[in-house]
């Protein structure tokens, strides 16, 4: 009898040891990470009639935090989740002469689960559409100050005429980079990289309408010729009742030479509301040490109204004295091709601190 008890005890002990070993193997792979950033700036705006200062959250890369968790399911297969809201107070793309203060509120960015392995990556939930960012590829190092998303700084300001009256069009409504459907609730698949290329597709809903996106992404280290990144995207959103389909085709390419010299180009074309709306953007920059500077130009055609053009020219500078902080300045001038329209000038200094 004692022998039988000893055998059973040994068997139970061995089983518990095996189970605890398995639990340990699973437990060791789980990693939960909490990170975030604060990006605040002072912006001075002169719309030709009025001028004022604004304390804004820079929407080029807004204040936010991120909680992410990943764990191996089996060898070569990982399951993960991302929870990332933003919390911008006085968003730089929404303040205006009439509305200088906008209370902060949490906005969803990523509420996403994903499975990744040798087959690629499948994501489910609120997150980037397959083409989100495809018009914004940028290796200049100055994107936090000035980039293709030209309307994210000062987008809420309206153009005025000679007599000081608002003409109607705003910066945001006249020179958007039309970067597809941004983030929405979707299922997305990304292929593995093949020679630097990867393909992504997503299906979901935004604004209560079905959305589908496709994008081709590319990165390549060209050795002595520097680095190149590019993307090409397509999105289509169903028409609401009484409305029209919303379709965007666009892409961008950015080249960073080893010397620090860099060039970025972006273009998008949106077919919506019975009108083709164009966006063109070019940036020439230079990176040296912890500094980066760039000159950029953008143009929106037929966005505010048929036949109406809007131009932008700007200068951006970013200093990253430490890896977790950017101190930046940007100056730009927006013009509307309408008789008597005053230019809008913006100057901004700020800092982005990662914690």
């Amino acid at each position, binding site marked *: 009898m004692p022998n039988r008890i000893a055998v059973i005890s040994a068997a139970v002990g061995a089983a518990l040891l095996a189970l605890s070993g398995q*639990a*340990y193997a699973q*437990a*060791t792979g*789980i*990693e*939960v*990470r*909490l*990170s*975030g*950033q604060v990006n605040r700036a002072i912006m001075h705006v002169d719309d030709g009639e009025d001028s004022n200062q604004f304390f804004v959250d820079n929407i*080029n*890369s807004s204040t*936010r935090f*991120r909680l992410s968790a990943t764990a191996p399911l089996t060898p070569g297969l990982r399951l993960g989740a991302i929870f990332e809201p933003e919390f911008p107070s006085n968003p730089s793309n929404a303040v205006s002469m009439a509305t200088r203060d906008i209370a902060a509120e949490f906005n969803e960015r990523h509420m996403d689960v994903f499975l990744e392995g040798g087959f690629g990556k499948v994501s489910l939930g609120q997150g980037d559409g397959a083409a989100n*960012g495809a018009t*914004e*590829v*940028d290796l200049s*190092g100055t*994107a*936090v100050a000035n980039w293709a*998303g030209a309307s994210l700084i000062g987008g809420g300001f309206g153009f005025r005429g000679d007599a000081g009256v608002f003409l109607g069009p705003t910066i945001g409504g006249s020179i958007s980079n039309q970067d597809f459907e941004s983030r929405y609730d979707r299922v997305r698949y990304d292929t593995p*990289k093949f*020679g*630097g*290329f990867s393909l992504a597709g997503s299906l979901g809903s935004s604004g209560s309408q079905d959305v589908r996106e496709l994008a*081709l*992404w*590319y*990165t*390549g*280290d*060209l*050795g002595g*010729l520097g680095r*190149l*990144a*590019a*993307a*090409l995207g397509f999105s289509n959103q169903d028409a609401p009742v009484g409305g029209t389909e919303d379709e965007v*085709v*666009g*892409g*961008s*390419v950015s080249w960073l030479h080893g010397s620090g010299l860099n060039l970025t*180009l972006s*273009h*998008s*074309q949106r077919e919506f509301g019975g009108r083709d709306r164009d966006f*063109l953007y070019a940036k020439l920059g230079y990176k040296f040490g912890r500094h980066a500077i760039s000159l950029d130009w953008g143009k929106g055609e037929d966005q505010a109204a048929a036949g109406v053009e809007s131009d932008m020219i700007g200068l951006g500078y970013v200093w990253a004295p430490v*890896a*977790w*902080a*950017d101190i930046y300045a940007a100056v730009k001038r927006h013009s509307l091709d309408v008789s008597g329209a005053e230019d809008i000038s913006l100057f901004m200094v700020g800092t*982005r*601190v*990662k*914690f």
Partner: protein
Amino acid sequence: MKALGLLALAAALGGCGAAPFDYHAASEIKQGPGAFTGNDGAFVFRPGQAKPAAASSEAEEFERWKRSAEGSAEYREFQDWREWREWKQRNAR
């Protein structure tokens, strides 16, 4: 069509044997260290790892000891010899 031109340019240059790299969108949280989080760049939790980690470090410590001079057969023989010398001195009186 201009966008296609951009991608064609990328593909043409990409065909020159370029190695892919991880592109990080500038609008996302920066990669690398954080102001309060050090080199990890994030507060990192590894649930359920504390106990196994201790067992793991003990095992590693044992391995290090085995590989060290103190863990060698020669060292143990030397210790035996020292003990024998002390025993011999004590018993000589």
